[in-house]
């Protein structure tokens, strides 16, 4: 009964930066709001887009603050921050503790361990944006292949040279292709490979 596209977990926080959420989504949306304020204030004061590294530092400090006082509780959401600035693409993950690192690839959420294992197989030096879209789609489908899980909707965004440095959800046709590739890969997997038998 859920309307498709009504529960988005990926948000644009600045023209050149986006954020993805897990955990308590309502908490995560507050982080998104703060992130948007921070980016806008920086632009206003310095006349330039906030570098990804700086935005990461600012929002991490903000999240950490909520671990200091009894009267508030920490955010119940981990976030991934993606950016594209003068120094190129940036990817950061911030936990409720306020700790954050920069990554070549990262996963958060229930199946993050499985996803991380899969991501490690990618070659970060050569992979293109489009290839990455397909690989991620495959991974997400793979994780969800358990009969127990609810039906899911794949949501993908990017910020790259191909999107002219703007953060946006990927084009419709690319999303359709990603879904197709994800499903196909899953079916190929299910019908097994010859390598499984070992005595």
């Amino acid at each position: 009964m859920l309307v498709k596209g009504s529960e988005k977990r990926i948000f644009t926080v600045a023209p050149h930066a986006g954020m993805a959420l897990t955990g308590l989504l309502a908490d995560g949306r507050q982080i998104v709001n703060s992130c948007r304020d921070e980016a806008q204030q920086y632009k206003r004061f310095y006349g330039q887009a906030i570098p990804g590294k700086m935005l990461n530092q600012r929002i991490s400090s903000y999240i950490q603050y909520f671990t200091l006082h009894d009267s508030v509780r920490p955010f119940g959401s981990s976030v991934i921050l993606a950016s594209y600035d003068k120094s190129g693409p940036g990817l950061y993950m911030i936990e409720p503790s306020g700790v954050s690192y920069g990554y070549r690839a990262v996963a958060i959420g229930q199946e993050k361990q499985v996803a991380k294992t899969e991501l490690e197989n990618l070659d970060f030096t050569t992979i293109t944006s489009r290839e990455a879209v397909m690989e991620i789609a495959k991974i997400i489908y793979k994780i969800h292949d358990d009969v127990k899980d609810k039906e899911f909707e794949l949501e993908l965004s990017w910020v790259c040279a191909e999107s002219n440095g703007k953060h946006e959800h990927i084009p419709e046709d690319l999303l359709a292709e990603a879904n197709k590739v994800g499903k196909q890969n899953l079916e190929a997997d299910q019908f097994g490979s010859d390598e499984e038998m070992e005595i």
Partner: protein
Amino acid sequence: AMATSAMVGQGEVLTGTTIMACTFDGGVVLGADSRTSSGNYVANKVADKITKVCDKVYLCRSGSAAHTQAVAGYANLYLNQHAIELGEKGVSVKSAATIVKEIAYTNKEWMNAGMIVAGWDKAQGGQVFAVPMGGTLMEVPFAVGGSGSIYINAFVDKNWRAGMTRDECKAFVRKAVSLAISRDGSSGGVIRTVTVDAAGQNKEMVPGDQVARYQDEHLPTLGSNAPIFT
């Protein structure tokens, strides 16, 4: 609007002034006279109106000496903090200009300051930003300001051209400022220039007796070192 002694409180020090900044191929040249006046009294004959706000970015100041010094102080403070967070090399001329503009605009009711921000950064090269009274921000290839600027607007419009060399630009700035000094009672003294490019920043001065004089300013007697008008 031109800053006049009628507009300010008794005894307030003005930089009735000529300031300018100009892009050339590879950088910028900033120029200014050195007269600070308080009414008819010349409070400082050798003032330095070109103030550094951060590495490779300078501010030309006209209007109230106090206001512009305060703005320069704040701009320097914010830009130092910014450089610490972002890394020295990341600070841009545009950021410096935006900060100056924000201060000027937010405090427009109380401010008497016409300023020019100019410098060089790796991303965009030499840039000039005008921040006239009121707090607008405009990126321009060249800008003039202060009470003396009105006398040289047409001159700079006519004579600036893109792609000048460093030396051509410096000579152009010196000539313009000397022409303004020639007609504006609130401008005088020495001509200071700062040249900023990839290689660095260079502060120079033309002493008062070497500033070009024109027409009937020439003394018929011998003994002057000033170049003859050409």
